């Protein structure tokens, strides 16, 4: 597609439940990025992929967060046993090279 598609737009989970977010990058883009926007304007890098390979995972919380980009499937970001502090907007972005990212409209995760 011509835009990065993120689903769902909103996700509500009780504390301790699992959350799974999806991202379909722009066709032909090799790189996929996940960012977390916790406070209104602060973007925290989580992980990037080059095709289906993890490129940089230095921002990923080690224990509860995982992500995948498999061929012919949307990329996914999964949070096991969500905590209140995981409430945020999660943005996915894709790019042909590593610069000039194209962002999706985000998934608002609310953990209650």
């Amino acid at each position, binding site marked *: 597609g011509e835009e990065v598609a993120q689903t769902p737009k909103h996700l509500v989970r009780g504390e301790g439940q699992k959350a799974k977010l999806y991202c379909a990058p722009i066709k032909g883009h090799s790189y996929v*990025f996940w960012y977390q926007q916790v406070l209104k304007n602060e973007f925290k*890098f989580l992980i*990037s992929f080059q095709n289906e390979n993890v490129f940089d995972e230095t921002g990923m919380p080690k224990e509860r967060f995982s992500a995948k980009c498999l061929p012919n499937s949307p990329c996914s970001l999964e949070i096991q046993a969500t905590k209140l502090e995981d409430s945020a907007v999660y*943005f996915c972005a894709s790019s042909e090279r*590593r610069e000039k*990212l194209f962002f999706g*409209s*985000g998934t608002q995760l609310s953990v209650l």
Partner: protein
Amino acid sequence: DQQVKQNSPSLSVQEGRISILNCDYTNSMFDYFLWYKKYPAEGPTFLISISSIKDKNEDGRFTVFLNKSAKHLSLHIVPSQPGDSAVYFCAAPGGATNKLIFGTGTLLAVQP
């Protein structure tokens, strides 16, 4: 360690006047800088970029200036229009994999 800083959380400008958004950085190794614009409930969209070997880049109403000695860049919007009202982020690629590091954003309000 905030490598990219936007010290003005908000800016209000009259329609038709110039908007100047500022960004400071600490890492002199950044190769280029980007400005993104974000509307509520949408992902950031790329606006303009500048290579570290240049001191100015212009695209229509948008001009970015880079002052390497001061580690400072600014985005000028002339003339400002109400549709420019948004949050503006400066960003630079950092770390071993050049992941984008974002500033905390400046909310621009253009008054009709």
